[in-house]
């Protein structure tokens, strides 16, 4: 019992390990494809979605870019038409300018704020508009310098003298041989509205800047912090423009002000002087994507947790089932061993019955003889002496019976499977004696050659008894008709004890040699052998940490060799007490061996 409990304790880590390895296998097998699929499809979906969003933004920016560009071009063309159609000299007159301005305002709404003509010296000689700017001096104004070089100039958005944001379209016209300038001021709001219309999501906004990142439109929110960043992006845009990056280039950078990742779409305007910039937080731009990704990750995590939990539970349950099955198997094995023991005992019984019957028969006959003599009378001849002789005979036959029953009892008593240190030589001698009667009738001579001082082994008496009895019985059976010689040898070699049992019997064919230790393998006729004997022996020897091997030549004989590890603390066996024929000491010694 104690031993069984010990086994259970020592095997617990084994089942835990089994459960663990099963758990890892299940988890690995289920998670690997899941994660692989999730990563792959997630990556592809992300890429595709980002491309789609970016293409959409790019298209949006390009479209507005084009409309702003064409707006500017249209205005420039209008002013040019004015300059050419109206001609220089007429423009000097204030009334002429005013009527032109009125016509423009009528047809173009409030786009055209004012109209003026500036002479070569930079003085505005005529003006039509809401501000009193007649005679203003523009000789130092940037646009005035620029238009002299380029004939047509569209300015950045400026505050100018009026303190109101506007931009100027200036055109060089020929007035009486002098280079005068026709100047139209356009309302900043016109472009602003156009650009401000672009708003996507929470953070998407668009604006126009010049090369120096000066805002040409009012962004929806304060962007002063990002000017430096924009400057960098635009500078880079300029560099890359040769590579075709110029049209709706996309840049993703971290915004130092908000600390968020921001997507910029930049596209040059007005021959590269201005830039249409669209910016949006990536989190906002890809909001739908990130939402789906989060859902995906959540599902993945949930799935992983489920799989792990299932793997844990399943593997534990499996391990427990295996454990139960193993226990059942062990129990079954024990039962099989028990059955095998009973079978060998049954085989023994046949021999024992005969052995007991002989002395009993003698006693019965002697008793009868004494009766015969008594009928005759004790006085006649030497009848009295004859009665004495008969009684002595009865007594000696009774003693013989007692020996047999003692042998049987000692055998039956050794059913305790406790492992103890024991001496194989003693046991071999005992078993050889035990089987001697059976051997005698089978014409088998049992010879034992036991090495003196063989180390003790750790084994159970009853199990070793079963092993030897089984092998000896097998050997005797193998020599059945005709008999032969049965040699039992013991020797010590390098920390091991070897026991070999060899017979001169029929041998085992090669084909069967592989299978003799298999359970239920037997060559005996049905009902004669269970086919369990050798498999039980195999199990017993294995359990003790030893092994059993067999060599056989057909018609020459078979030799089984058992190797058992010598007990570490064990002593050496006392030198043997000689031949197998010698009787063992009476039952006093026996009870000691069985250990009570």
């Amino acid at each position, binding site marked *: 019992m104690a031993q069984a409990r010990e086994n259970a304790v020592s095997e617990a880590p084994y089942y835990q390990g089994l459960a663990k390895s099963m758990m890892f296998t299940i988890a690995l097998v289920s998670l690997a494809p899941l994660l692989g699929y999730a990563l792959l499809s997630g990556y592809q979906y992300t890429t595709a979605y980002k491309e789609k969003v970016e293409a959409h933004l790019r298209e949006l920016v390009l479209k507005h870019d084009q409309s702003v560009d064409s707006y500017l071009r249209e205005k420039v063309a209008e002013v040019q038409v004015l300059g050419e159609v109206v001609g220089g000299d007429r423009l000097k007159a204030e009334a002429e300018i005013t009527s032109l301005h009125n016509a423009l305002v009528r047809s173009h709404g409030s786009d055209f704020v004012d109209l003026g003509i500036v002479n070569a010296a930079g003085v505005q000689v005529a003006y039509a508009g809401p501000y009193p700017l007649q005679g203003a001096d523009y000789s130092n104004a940037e646009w005035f310098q620029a238009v002299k070089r380029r004939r047509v100039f569209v300015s950045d958005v400026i505050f100018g003298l009026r303190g109101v944001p506007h931009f100027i379209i200036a055109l060089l016209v020929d007035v009486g041989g002098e280079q005068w300038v026709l100047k139209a001021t356009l309302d900043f709001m016109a472009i602003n509205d156009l650009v401000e219309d672009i708003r996507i999501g929470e953070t998407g906004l668009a604006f126009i800047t010049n090369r120096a990142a000066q805002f040409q439109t009012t962004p929806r929110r304060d962007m002063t912090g990002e000017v430096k960043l924009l400057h960098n992006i635009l500078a880079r845009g300029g560099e890359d423009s040769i590579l075709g990056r110029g049209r709706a280039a996309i840049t993703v950078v971290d915004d130092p002000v908000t600390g968020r990742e921001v997507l910029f779409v930049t596209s040059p305007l007005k021959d590269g002087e201005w830039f249409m910039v669209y910016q949006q937080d990536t989190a906002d731009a890809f909001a739908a994507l990130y939402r789906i990704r989060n859902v995906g990750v959540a599902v993945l995590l949930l799935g992983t947790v489920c799989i792990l939990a299932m793997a844990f539970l399943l593997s534990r349950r499996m391990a427990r089932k295996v454990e139960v099955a193993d226990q059942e198997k062990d129990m079954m094995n024990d039962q099989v061993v028990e059955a095998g023991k009973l079978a060998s005992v049954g085989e023994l019984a046949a021999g024992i019955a005969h052995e007991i019957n*002989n002395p009993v*028969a*003698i006693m*019965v006959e002697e008793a009868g003889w004494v009766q015969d003599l008594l009928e005759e009378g004790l006085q006649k001849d030497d009848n009295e002496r004859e009665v004495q002789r008969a009684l002595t005979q009865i007594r000696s036959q009774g003693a013989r019976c007692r020996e047999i029953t003692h042998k049987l009892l000692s055998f039956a008593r050794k059913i305790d499977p406790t492992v103890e240190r024991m001496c194989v030589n003693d046991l071999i001698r005992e078993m050889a004696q035990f089987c001697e009667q059976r051997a005698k009738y089978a014409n088998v001579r049992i010879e034992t050659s036991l090495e003196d001082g063989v180390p003790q082994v750790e084994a159970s008496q009853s199990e070793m008894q079963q092993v030897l009895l089984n092998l000896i019985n097998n050997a005797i059976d193998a020599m059945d008709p005709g008999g032969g010689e049965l040699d039992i040898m013991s020797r010590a070699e390098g920390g091991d004890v070897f026991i070999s049992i060899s017979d001169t019997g029929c041998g085992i064919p090669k084909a069967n040699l592989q299978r003799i230790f298999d359970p239920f393998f037997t060559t005996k006729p049905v009902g004669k052998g269970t086919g369990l004997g050798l498999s039980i022996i195999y199990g017993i020897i294995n359990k003790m940490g030893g092994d059993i091997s067999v060599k056989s030549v057909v018609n020459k004989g078979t030799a089984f060799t058992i190797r058992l590890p010598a007990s570490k603390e064990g002593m050496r066996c006392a030198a043997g007490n000689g031949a197998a024929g010698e009787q063992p000491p009476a039952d006093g010694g026996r009870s000691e061996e069985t250990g009570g």
Partner: protein
Amino acid sequence: MSDSIRLLLVDDETDFTATLGRRLVRRGLTVETADCGEAGLSKLETFPADVVLLDVRMPGMDGLSVLHRIKELYPLTEVVMLTGHASMEVAIRGMELGAFDYLMKPVAFEELFYKVEDAAARKRLQEGRIEGRRRG
């Protein structure tokens, strides 16, 4: 013809054959003993037994072979087999080989004695028949 039944006891237990023989002699039988099958067969060469009481389990030549041999050489000689419990099958096999009957050890003396007498009677009957046929 001599009335005394000639009996051969074959058993490896010499103590048993000696005592049993003594008792049977006292009851008027002529008894010889042998301690193994081979000895029994050689004894039969000089001692024409009416009945052989044969133990089936002996070292050396076993009972059935001896029975077979006896029936071959002396078909008229009746054989009564002595068996242990465990060798019932052997006893039945013996009957098939032509044994008169079998007895189980330990056997009651009276039973054995009557069985031997029966066997002897049958043997003599057979002999008489053969004699009669020869004359007729």
